[in-house]
């Protein structure tokens, strides 16, 4: 069975889907990704679907599941590189990728994750009541 490769770039895991997804590949990808997130402690997942001509409800559900799994493991998921034709088809079909953030390309996706991460860190620092009193 073919497996989708998962690349680690800094704090981000990059998954580029190049082949038609089947049930088995999708399940394998979910398992692999969960393991890699835990093993590497990454806080961002970028799924590149530039090569996909067709995104149907199956692929949409797979993306949603991956996003949910990553969320549980404290990693932000961004889907990047959706083609115009794919986006139009999804809209015409009335499918929406709920809970998934999207970006135009990998670069933008990495910026998005970095920004989200920075916000989160700020928020955590602000949230900590001892942070300011500890360093007067």
């Amino acid at each position, binding site marked *: 069975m073919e497996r989708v490769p998962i690349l680690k770039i800094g704090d981000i895991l990059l998954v580029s889907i190049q082949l038609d997804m089947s049930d088995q590949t999708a399940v394998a990808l979910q398992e692999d990704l969960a393991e890699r997130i835990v093993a590497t402690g990454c806080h961002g997942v970028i799924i590149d679907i530039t090569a996909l001509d067709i995104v149907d409800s199956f692929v949409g559900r797979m993306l949603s599941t991956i996003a949910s799994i990553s969320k549980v493991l404290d990693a932000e998921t961004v889907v*990047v590189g959706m083609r*115009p034709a794919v986006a139009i088809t999804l809209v015409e079909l009335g499918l929406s990728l709920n809970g998934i953030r*999207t970006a*135009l390309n990998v670069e*933008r996706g990495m910026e998005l994750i970095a920004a989200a991460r920075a916000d989160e860190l700020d928020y955590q620092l602000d949230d900590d009541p001892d942070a300011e009193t500890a360093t007067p």
Partner: protein
Amino acid sequence: MALSAEESGRLAALLGGHAERVTQRWTEIVAGSLRGRLSQAELRRQVQDLHSAIVATGEHGAIDLSAESAAELRAALSDLSRGRARQGFSATETAISVFALKDVLAGLVEEAGGDNALRDYIAFSRLIDEMGLFTFESFVRTRESLIADQAEQLLELSTPVVKLWEGVVAVPLVGTLDSARAQVVMERLLQTLVDTGSPYAIIDITGVPAVDTQVAQHILKTVVAARLMGADCIISGIRPQIAQTIVALGIEFGDIATKASLADALRHVLRLNGVETARRQPRRDV
């Protein structure tokens, strides 16, 4: 419908024998109907072309407008109607250019006399009717292709995607938005987003005369598709009446940003990007 070889021969002889008179009379009748909108010389040339095509076809045997042998005649006829259609003449004025031959022939046949004059004339006029129909068809075909070309040009003209700022593109929509145009706009906008890598798009509807539920639906679809691709859309140029219509129709734009003018939309995007836009403050300390 076709003429027999014998009749064709007689027609060719009749027309060929009185070439000068036929073209003269023919040109006069047509010129009368066109009321001087085409020069006499040009008209004469067209009539001569048609005349020689008929004579040439008739001399070669039976005239059958749909046959291979009448290719020259058909070419002359469609040339004539194409020219008329492009110059903006009406269908009647085009058809008369062919039907005028009937009047000319009536005189000639009467003069020539003979036993089968009437039968010949009926056969000839049937051929001319056929030629007239053919002319009319090519006239309509030319007009239709003209209209199709213009519609396409209009579609191309009316949907430009312009770059406003680094990472910001805008689509100024002008004219009524139907399904076909909405589709073109959507495809072109999304493609530009990919090509330029712009994360923001502004859809300006200043030039859209009316927004009904269908137009709103098209715009919403475009926005949702852009979002799926990871770009954000802002709708701008909403005129007061349009705003009232939108509310009256109960159209919900949800969490899509709407701005009154393109300038406001651009300022909104720039602020999101962290670019400072200085607002001119009125001076007070003078």
